[in-house]
């Protein structure tokens, strides 16, 4: 039923470190760790800013950096298309969205390149990076991803599309219809479900009658792949295979990253109403950044000094981004009226 591509990784010699088996150099691994760390520090600062009443809202990607950095490294930046969702801070950061941009969006300030202060924070977008604008209604991006896949097939380029969504969102009709199109037409789309086990307060048993989202791949004639989304290398490996498959014209895949959201759904949520602290603590021990750091330590890719250096660099970047955004003005009020329509084409009168 579900084809666990990560098995393929095991077939190589066990002697080599996992990242070498995956074709990754040490410095790439280090870079991946760096992006995860930076994403985490930005995200944590956003929580703090919310608690300090500096900003009105935050929705977080904490805990899901593993699969996100894996996905980011598996695609060609600016070439492939990404339709992210609101937790994809680490994914979009790794793909080139800047911390300053993210902070501007957090504050809703002028110059926010994602929406010009129109959308709530975490509605990632950057056309020059082929990152398609996130909207709040969940799952709408899924069939849109199939549309981009359709266009790629139409134009016969070697691009692929990755779209992300939570497991709760797979209950929407958009999920079914989007995967159905991709399956029928064999489109180059990777559907990456970040299964963090809750849709706000609703646990997976109430979201679907199957154990795994990937169990549904069969219904769409595509492979379903389950992997540990908190393990950045396993995530990278699974994504790499799916991307290759799509790029070779072999069609779509449904990927399921098993992960967890150790923080509340958003700054408006109180997760103590629906889950135990033990459960949360259990998962904090499986924190993707912790796992990545340990991997780097034990493979001599990182040492404590270097890590300290990273932490300091991250702090500087976050400070800079925050100060930059804080100092930025709000958009002029009348900007609200702009950009509803594009200019209409001019025509020379004829006929």
């Amino acid at each position, binding site marked *: 039923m579900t084809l666990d591509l990560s098995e393929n990784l095991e077939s190589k010699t066990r002697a080599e470190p996992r990242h070498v088996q995956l074709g990754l150099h040490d410095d790439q691994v280090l870079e991946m760790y760096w992006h995860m760390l930076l994403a985490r520090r930005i995200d944590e600062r956003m929580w703090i800013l919310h608690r300090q009443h500096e900003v009105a809202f935050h929705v977080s990607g904490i805990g899901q950096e593993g699969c996100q950095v894996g996905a980011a490294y598996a695609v060609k930046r600016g070439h492939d298309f990404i339709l992210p969702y609101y937790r994809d801070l680490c994914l979009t950061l790794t793909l080139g969205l800047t911390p300053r941009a993210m902070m501007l969006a957090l504050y809703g300030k002028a110059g926010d390149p994602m929406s010009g*202060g129109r959308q*709530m924070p975490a*509605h990632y977008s950057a056309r020059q990076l082929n990152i398609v604008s996130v909207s*709040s209604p969940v799952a709408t991006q899924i069939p849109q991803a199939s549309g981009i896949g359709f266009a790629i097939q139409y134009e016969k380029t070697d691009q692929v599309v990755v779209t992300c969504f939570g497991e709760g969102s797979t209950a929407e009709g958009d999920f079914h219809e989007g995967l159905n199109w991709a399956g029928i037409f064999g489109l180059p789309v990777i559907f990456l479900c970040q299964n963090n086990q809750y849709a706000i307060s609703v646990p997976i048993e109430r979201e679907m009658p199957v154990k795994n989202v990937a169990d549904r791949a069969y219904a769409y004639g595509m492979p379903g792949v389950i992997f540990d989304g908190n393990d950045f290398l396993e995530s990278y490996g699974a994504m790499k295979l799916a991307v290759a498959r799509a790029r070779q014209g072999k069609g779509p895949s449904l990927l399921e990253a098993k992960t967890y959201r150790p923080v509340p759904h958003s700054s408006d949520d109180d997760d103590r109403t629906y889950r135990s602290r033990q459960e949360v603590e259990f998962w904090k021990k499986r924190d993707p950044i912790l796992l990545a750091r340990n991997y780097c330590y034990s493979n001599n890719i990182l040492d404590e000094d270097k890590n300290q250096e990273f932490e300091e660099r991250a702090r500087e970047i976050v400070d800079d981004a925050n100060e930059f955004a804080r100092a930025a003005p709000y958009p002029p009020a009348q*900007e609200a009226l702009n950009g509803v329509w594009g200019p209409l084409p001019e025509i020379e009168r004829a006929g």
Partner: protein
Amino acid sequence: MSEINNIDALTLTLAQEMRRDPRIFLAGEDVGRRGGVFRATKGLVQEFGENRVVDSPLAELSLVAVGIGAALYGLRPIVEIQFADFIAPAFNQIVQEAARFRYRTNGDWICPLLIRTPYGGGIGGGLYHSQSIEATYAHIPGLYVVAPATPYDIVGMLRYALRVNDPVLFLEHKKTYRLIKGEVPDSDYMIPFCKADIKRKGSDITVIAYGLMLHETLQAAQQLIHEDIDIEVVDPRTLHPLDRDTILSSVKKTGKALIVHEDNLTLGLGAEISALIASEAFEYLDAPVMRLTGPDVPAMPYARTMQDYFMPNVEKITTAIRKLAAY
């Protein structure tokens, strides 16, 4: 008599009604243990159990369709759409199905489904957590759209809605949830649909407003006393079908009308009210019917500056009224 806010009015009445009628159940995203993201269903799962307070999967189309099915069966479902913005996936089920069962079967099948949803802006919700959706649904024959704005009206209209034998879209302005407080009698009173309420009597100008804008308008009226402008404030409460008589008699009396809403201008509810007045009270009008609404942009921006620019408020209302008074 006790003073409560809008959200308490909802929660208390939901509980009371569920005690009265075992056919009533509640379904929606996070309505159970979480008690709803606005806490409107707080405590209900504890009292009524998971069978009657149902956490639904994240899927509005089927949430509404399941409500329709249960209503056809003879139950009294209440479904909560977490934000009015997210009712759009259920549009087909609401418009083509819920609102048409009675008509398409010549009265044989009926669909008493109640859909509750928080709507409206001013809370930093940006494009997708601030929308006003009333006009889209007020265009649909067979579907009641109500928007009570005070604890008194919420309690009375919610009770009534649960006795109406047609589908009802029950709109709750989310900014008023905790902002608006009011007296609610202990009796089991009800407020019928299709009856507007004159929230303030006045003689110079009729202002028609509902939801949060009703409260902004009442404040504006208070301020304008000092300028000797006496405003009559009509709260339609039921937005579809409108209480034409109350609106028209008020305008016939004052000769001037202003409609205020957050939704964008073009084909917002103000279009219908304005057309109604222009057609039925033409000879009484001393000035053109005026609309003060959100601008024609896709929805309300997040940044404070732009949000404030979008929203009608006391100041903009007083300005508009002054203009109308001077006409």
